């Protein structure tokens, strides 16, 4: 505990929509993986639409959600990221204030992860399996050969996603072991025990998330009805 921590020792960092998006993505990723392995294509498609919806939601939430969810709050330029890495590795430079939410490296991994997931779902929309029978909803717009190429890219992007998840888990392990900081519980209940520099982030009303989620649900439904 640092001296400037508030007396109750807890500060809220992640809002509910951000946490829900995170864990929904984790579960849907598992469902997609298993249904692809076991050839349950109907459920694979449904889970994939879910991933698409959650990713779009998270992207939009990055512009109108709580402070720690906003890209404008946590995405940093190369210079600031380098400074952060130097500090992380123990080279004490000038004292930049520790961010309340995501650090600059975490920000980078969020951008890469969301980009990969968006790429992955888009590829899936056009993918065709070897029989030519199971396919994404937009496969009718492409030839068999092109649809197969989409399927192969879909499989390659899956490997990249696995690698990215590996990096993510390794980072969690690093923070736990080297910095004695647990990142998982805050992503579950939303609180961090230490308040760095006593800053308290702002949040937005819950109905904003509901409004946004409804809009995105309708958008995805409309998109799929175009096939």
């Amino acid at each position, binding site marked *: 505990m640092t001296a400037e921590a508030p007396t109750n020792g807890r500060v809220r960092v992640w809002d509910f929509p951000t946490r829900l998006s995170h864990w929904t993505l984790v579960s849907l990723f598992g469902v997609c993986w298993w249904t*692809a*392995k076991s*050839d349950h294509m109907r459920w694979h498609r449904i889970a994939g639409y879910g991933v698409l919806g959650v990713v779009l939601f998270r992207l939009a939430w990055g512009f109108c959600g709580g402070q720690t969810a906003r890209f404008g709050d946590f995405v940093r330029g190369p210079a600031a990221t380098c400074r952060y890495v130097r500090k992380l590795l123990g080279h004490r430079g000038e004292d930049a204030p520790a961010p309340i939410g995501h650090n600059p490296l975490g920000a980078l991994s969020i951008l890469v992860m969301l980009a990969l997931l968006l790429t992955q779902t888009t590829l899936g929309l056009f*993918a*065709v*399996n*070897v*029989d*030519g*029978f*199971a*396919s994404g909803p937009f*496969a*009718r717009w492409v*030839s*068999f*050969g092109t*649809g*197969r190429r989409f*399927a*192969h890219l*879909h*499989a390659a992007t899956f490997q990249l996603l696995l690698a990215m998840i590996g990096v993510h888990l390794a980072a969690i392990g690093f923070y736990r072991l080297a910095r004695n900081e647990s990142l998982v519980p805050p992503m579950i209940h939303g609180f961090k025990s230490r308040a760095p520099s006593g800053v308290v982030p702002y949040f937005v009303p819950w109905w904003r998330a509901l409004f946004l989620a409804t809009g995105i649900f309708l958008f995805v439904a409309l998109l799929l009805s175009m*096939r």
Partner: protein
Amino acid sequence: MLLLGAVLALGTVGIAWATAGLAPIVHARQSHFKALGRAAKSLRDQIGRSEPDWSIVASDAREIERLAAALPSWFPEGSGRGHGVKTRARAAIWAKPQEFGQAARRLLNRAQDLTRAAATRDPRALALRTRALGQACGSCHRRFRARSSWW
């Protein structure tokens, strides 16, 4: 030593010869299957429509039936995995010839059903027969083709 060298050289030549003979067989098989896949997808694309284009349906059905009838001849003994040419044809094809033959016959039967359904111009019968055809592809692939259906 000389003998060993000679044996090795002969062996290498033998493998090279076998591979040279095998590659065209495997590649021809895969291109037949690609034609089958194109026809199957083209057919599937007609199913979701309010009114299928019956001339496309008929020509796809004919193509699938033709290829299904020829399918067993694409698998000569020794053209599976482990003979030096990249293929997903499992050894089980030759280890269980009866089952493989059954799977191939099933495809042919379903293709014939499909051709008949196409002739009736009944969209519901067509959808039903197309689904049955897809199951014939998938069940054979699960048993006799390596890797998931997405690779």
